[in-house]
């Protein structure tokens, strides 16, 4: 990011390639709506570009990136009155080869995805930040503006609920 700050456009491309997939999935699974997710994903990167002059490496770039994403998500939910939109059918899982296994895998993953969607927002966000962003508990706390205890608790609850679905 510092290289990009000093005018190296290639440095941004490297950063973008490193984080694009994980950030996109984080936003998509937080919003459940592809068009809104794409818009917000783009907005996150635009904020990164605009804020490059003020960027100071106080934390990992990843933490900073997901902090911006978190703030935009909060704005988004506030505008929507905290209502979540259902995931479209066509965005559900597609699985490989054998029709029987395919159906079973699809069902298993669908259940898991439903459980993920059913998590309270704060827990789901903590889980996604951990899985997609690779953030530690301390970094999750920093990105979401909460303390470490709360972040740890959210992550633990999320994992426990998802584990129950996996063990079924």
């Amino acid at each position, binding site marked *: 990011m510092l290289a990009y700050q000093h005018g190296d456009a290639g440095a941004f491309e490297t950063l973008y390639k490193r984080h694009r*997939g994980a950030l996109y999935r984080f936003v998509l699974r937080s919003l459940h709506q592809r068009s809104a997710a794409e818009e917000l994903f783009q907005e996150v990167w635009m904020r990164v570009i605009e804020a490059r*002059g003020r960027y100071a490496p106080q934390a990992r770039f990843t933490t900073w990136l997901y902090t911006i994403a978190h*703030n935009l998500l909060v704005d988004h939910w506030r505008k929507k009155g905290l209502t979540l939109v259902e995931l479209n059918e066509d965005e559900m899982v597609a699985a490989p080869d054998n029709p029987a296994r395919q159906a079973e895998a699809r069902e298993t993953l669908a259940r898991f995805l439903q459980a993920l969607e059913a998590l309270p927002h704060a827990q789901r966000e903590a889980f996604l930040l951990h899985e997609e962003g690779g953030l530690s508990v301390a970094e999750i706390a920093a990105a979401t503006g909460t303390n470490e205890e709360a972040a740890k608790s959210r992550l633990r609850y999320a994992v426990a609920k998802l584990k129950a679905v*996996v063990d079924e």
Partner: protein
Amino acid sequence: MSDEPKVSGRYRELPREEPPRALDDAILAASRRAVDARPAPLVVPTGRQRWYFPVAAAAIIVLAVAVTVHVEREQPGEEIVTQVEPAKEVLRTEPARQYQYTPDPKPAPPAGTRDLQEQRPSAAAEAPRAPAPAAAPPSAPPQRALGSAQDSAGADRREKTDALAKRADEANAQLRQAEGARARSEVMARAAAPASRFARAAPEQWLLAIDDLKRQGQHEEAARELAEFRRRYPDYKIPESMLIRVEPR
């Protein structure tokens, strides 16, 4: 990644969605444009109005150049006259002083002429703005004795006149440069002014100002300021107590 490998493994089985290629291209193009247009702007319009900024920047540059050229062409006329006036004064009085020269070894003149000679300086002083007389030709018979002295005095005079004229020209040039620089800096300062009047304040003060705006019933202004704030400080965490106060209802 998770402490529970089963959960993490199951999560990894979910499809690995990626952003569409068009989105990648748009973001990377924006990053390159931003680098080309350094330094980073304080506030950048978002959404469909992104093109406003380059157009506005181009208009400001054209305006700045036009104003600078205009100022450089128009200004020197009036102001420089007043500045250079002292130099002209010197130019006018200098030759008069030069003509007070008297050759030294000469028999003491009669009382009447001595009086006249003694009166000359005061006469010259009384009429300092009298036009400088033309230099006497060296072959003039009555002044032959003074010829060489007048030659050297004339050369001195010309040198001094040239020097003074040069100084006046330099003063004019400096004045023009100073005027041009002042005009340019004013234009640049206006161009660099932030979109929000609170943009230079600390984040906390800015939020308090937004709160004040809301209390005064200026809700639209407050909403605009909050949007600016969000753009300027994308990673700033507004405390919940403040968020309730500044956010539009």
